[in-house]
């Protein structure tokens, strides 16, 4: 069985650390597919999502080296250091060192990307980021695409799942599920784990922790898939709701609920 690793953002630590961890566990992908961060298509999509001002800010931070100490990635970096993984974060260099093939595409759903995948015949894929996946793209994988969703499934689907889980009083959870169609987070679920939260946690720190848990759970899911022992639980569309990006006016309430949740968890 061979699989593909898919991601979009060339700068954040997630794909690099995933590859270091997979190499350690000897479950490396056969190849990686990287969506160009600054392609015209993606810039158009991101302008719509973030707005011009925020996109400009993102691009500026993309070309500056320092990692913000308060960012979500610092948890991933800390975990990587604890595991003794290499410090290399340049995915191209990592691929070269590990002899992995690297495909770069403008968008995952372009005919060239789909043709390439049809030729390569991967059994499944691990998805870290890259936009909405269309039917034609998904049809290229016999066993679907694995995705770590930072929310309770089937209840909380879509964007900002941690914030939405917390504000609804649900514990922050990471769920690995299979993307099988264009429905947002509606595919069969494989494994899930509740994130441990502490009194001092904020939404930002929980998001950081969830990135670490996402990596470890994806690796566990890949192990299960490769061993042929993955057992999925189906979910019905009506069992959950799709959520969208949470407005900043709701965030103070999410923070308050998180504090309350941590108190409840500590009492338990």
């Amino acid at each position: 069985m061979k699989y593909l690793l898919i991601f979009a953002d060339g700068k954040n630590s997630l794909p690099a650390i995933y590859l270091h961890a997979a190499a350690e566990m000897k479950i490396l992908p056969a190849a990686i597919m990287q969506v160009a961060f600054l392609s015209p298509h993606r810039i158009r999509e991101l302008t719509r999502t973030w707005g011009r001002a925020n996109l400009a800010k993102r691009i500026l931070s993309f070309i500056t080296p320092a990692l913000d100490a308060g960012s979500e990635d610092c948890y991933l970096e800390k975990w990587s250091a604890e595991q003794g993984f290499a410090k290399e974060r340049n995915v191209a260099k990592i691929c070269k060192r590990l002899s992995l093939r690297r495909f770069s595409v403008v968008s995952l759903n372009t005919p060239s990307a789909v043709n390439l995948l049809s030729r390569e015949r991967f059994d499944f894929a691990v998805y870290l980021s890259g936009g909405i996946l269309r039917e034609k793209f998904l049809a290229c994988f016999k066993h679907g695409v694995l995705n770590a969703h930072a929310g309770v499934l089937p209840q909380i689907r879509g964007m900002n799942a941690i914030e939405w889980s917390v504000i609804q009083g649900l514990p922050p959870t990471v769920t690995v599920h299979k993307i099988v169609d264009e429905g947002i987070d509606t595919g069969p679920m494989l494994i899930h784990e509740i994130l441990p939260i502490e009194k001092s946690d904020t939404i930002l720190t929980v998001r950081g922790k969830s990135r670490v848990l996402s990596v470890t759970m994806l690796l566990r899911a890949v192990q299960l898939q490769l061993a042929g022992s993955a057992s999925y639980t189906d979910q019905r569309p009506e069992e959950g709701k799709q959520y969208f990006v949470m407005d900043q006016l709701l965030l103070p309430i999410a923070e308050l609920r998180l504090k309350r949740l941590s108190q409840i968890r500590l009492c338990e």
Partner: protein
Amino acid sequence: MMKLLKSRAPGHYGVKADYNDYFSHKYENAARWLVSSFQRNNSEGSSAWKSRLYHPFRAWSRAYPETSGYIIPTLYDYVQFRESEQKTKDIHQIIEKTVTWLLSIQMPSGSFPAGHYVGNNHYYLQSRDYFLRRTHEATESSFNSGQILLGLVRHFQETGDQRCLVAINRCADFLGSSIQPDGVWTKDSYANASSPSYFTHVSWPLLEAWRVTKNHSHKTKAILSLDRVMTKVDRRTSFISNMGFRGSDSASTHTIGYCLFGLLQSSRMLAPEGSTYEKAAVSALDRLFRISEVAKKMPGGFSSGWKPDWAYTCVTGDMQLALCFLVLFDSSGDLRFLNSACRLYSRIADAQEVDGSFYGSIPPWGKYMAFRKPSWVVKYFLDATLHLWRSLELEKATEL
């Protein structure tokens, strides 16, 4: 530059963490501007808009009876919010003078007139009348009468002013008489006999009047009109035809907001009878919710089958739809609707001018009220601010 780079990228964490100051500032600023729209007319009605392009010297338009009427509930909300403060005395005076003025221009038929008041029972009916200095005698307007009813009913509920009760009865009788047995409104100088679907925003005031007058025929007539709108709902797409001005299918979110809010409020007033009205509004709002959430903004208008017009944002429409989402949140408790309202609100609040006003469209040269700052945008902004603020505070206080 480094400060900019280090700030959280997508405007997400920590910003507006304490929203009380944020709302308070926006609310006060907007209220001050709205009050000045009355003061310009010696408190006898609120000017329709402010524009140096249309009115280079005076800037403010003439008083607009329609919006002056439905701004009254907004002023009462403001007074109640600022209960303890001395300055609310002025607001009470403005309300009193405006109501007196409105009663003085009520027509013998019970209707209120269309257009902007020039004086001596003459009105400007269109924007070009300002340039041509062309005035018209008072003409009946069902829609404007409905909006003014909202103000009169609120004033009567707050003060028990018997003059208002008489005016409400006469106005509601006029509205009742202007509905045909098939639910079509006939007496409106602007819409003529096209009877657009957004006249649900007349049915609702008629129901408000029924609560006060206890005259059952007012309720029956309102239902007649609402049932006609129900026949215009496309079951597949939930689009309601004729929502635009003069009954067109191409509508700005302003008239869509009127239509849906009218349905929601009518349903609330007729509960449990009016559940079909609520269902139609909820289905339409669900479509709008998905379109705006995926695109991260609301188009300025829609045509048949929810075909969006992305060329502009209709500011007042966004605020009206935010109010609709807040009503849905109140009834369903679904936080996604609260989020949608927050998103629409945040975007518009960022476009507030220093003086507290808003242009009718974003960009200011957009299709709706180009280069003008309408008073009703500020009215809906104030209503949305207060409703949203309270909803967030309630949600904050809710235990898990």
